[in-house]
């Protein structure tokens, strides 16, 4: 029975990747051809380079570990650094401050009033800046004055002589 069973097993069950045999042939031949042509890279080393290498590396390690480590953040350096930083900030503020365009809305009303008061403007000059529509009298006289009050004002404050000369 067992013998007959074994006879029935025709394959081992092992498989190869697709196209393996055609590929492997090409790969082996490529490799052989290349190695026939160039077997080494042609790079060389200076004489006795490897002999002296160990000493070189050791002396490097020693000098590195013997070098005194100076903290970068010493007090004095910090002071210099902050001085430079402050100078830079100042410089940027003074020289590189981009000239901001001031809009009319940014100005305080008081500043405008002061400006108008202090500068020597005549009312005609001011009026020339305004359009006809803006110049109607309603804008200037806010309180309606009665004829009586005008009369009283004139009687109190003006002399008849003055009025006549005018």
């Amino acid at each position, binding site marked *: 029975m067992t013998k007959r069973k074994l006879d029935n097993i025709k394959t081992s069950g092992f498989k190869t990747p697709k196209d393996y045999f055609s*590929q492997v042939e*090409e*790969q082996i031949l*490529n*490799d052989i*051809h*290349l*190695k026939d*042509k*160039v077997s*080494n*890279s*042609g*790079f*060389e*080393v*200076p004489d006795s*380079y*490897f002999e002296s*290498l*160990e000493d*070189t*590396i*050791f002396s*490097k*390690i020693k000098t*590195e570990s013997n070098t005194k480590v100076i903290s970068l953040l010493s007090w004095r350096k910090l002071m210099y650094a902050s001085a430079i930083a402050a100078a830079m900030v100042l410089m940027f503020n003074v020289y590189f401050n981009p000239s901001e365009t001031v809009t009319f809305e940014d100005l305080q009303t008081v500043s405008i009033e002061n400006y108008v008061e202090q500068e020597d403007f005549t009312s005609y000059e001011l009026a020339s800046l305004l359009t006809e529509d803006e110049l109607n009298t309603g804008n200037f006289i806010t309180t309606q004055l009665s004829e009586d009050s005008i009369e009283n004002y004139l009687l109190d404050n003006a002399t008849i002589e003055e009025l006549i000369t005018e």
Partner: protein
Amino acid sequence: MTFLDNEQDFIQRLSTSSTKEDAFKELLKLYKERLYWHIRHIVKSHDDADDVLQNTFIKVYKNIHNFKGDSKLFSWMYRIATNESISHINKNAKRAQFSSEELQQYTISNLEADVYFEGDEIQYKLQQAIAILPEKQQLVFNMKYFQDIKYKDMSVILDTSEGALKASYHIAVKKIEAYLTQD
């Protein structure tokens, strides 16, 4: 690949201050040439290789206490050497304001004048062909072709599957063959 009989003991000696120096000397003796050639094939010139090799060993010496032992010591050192080589190239390229590919072309064109390059025409052409490959294929090709590092070890060093490494190597060989036979 590993030449250390008892790696655990050896690492213990490397991390103990009283035995550190002797153990490190042994490590240097064992790996200096192999690491040198690994680095040299990446950076090409002897002076650069010398720089990178020294930095690699100094890093190993200083950081041995950080070595966790989850991979073999040699693959850890190869990984440091690989990273150091690549960052060395990038640093040089940045300094010269080149891309690392441009720098490599420039290095190869300087090989003919290099006193430590004894190659003839075909070896020079081989270096030109390697320089055209993508970085990963270059690494795999150099490690397999010139140093015969096993795929299994390479897989740990480069953190890539063995299958992918084999494929990379065969693609690299094919491209180089084509380059060498084109004229």
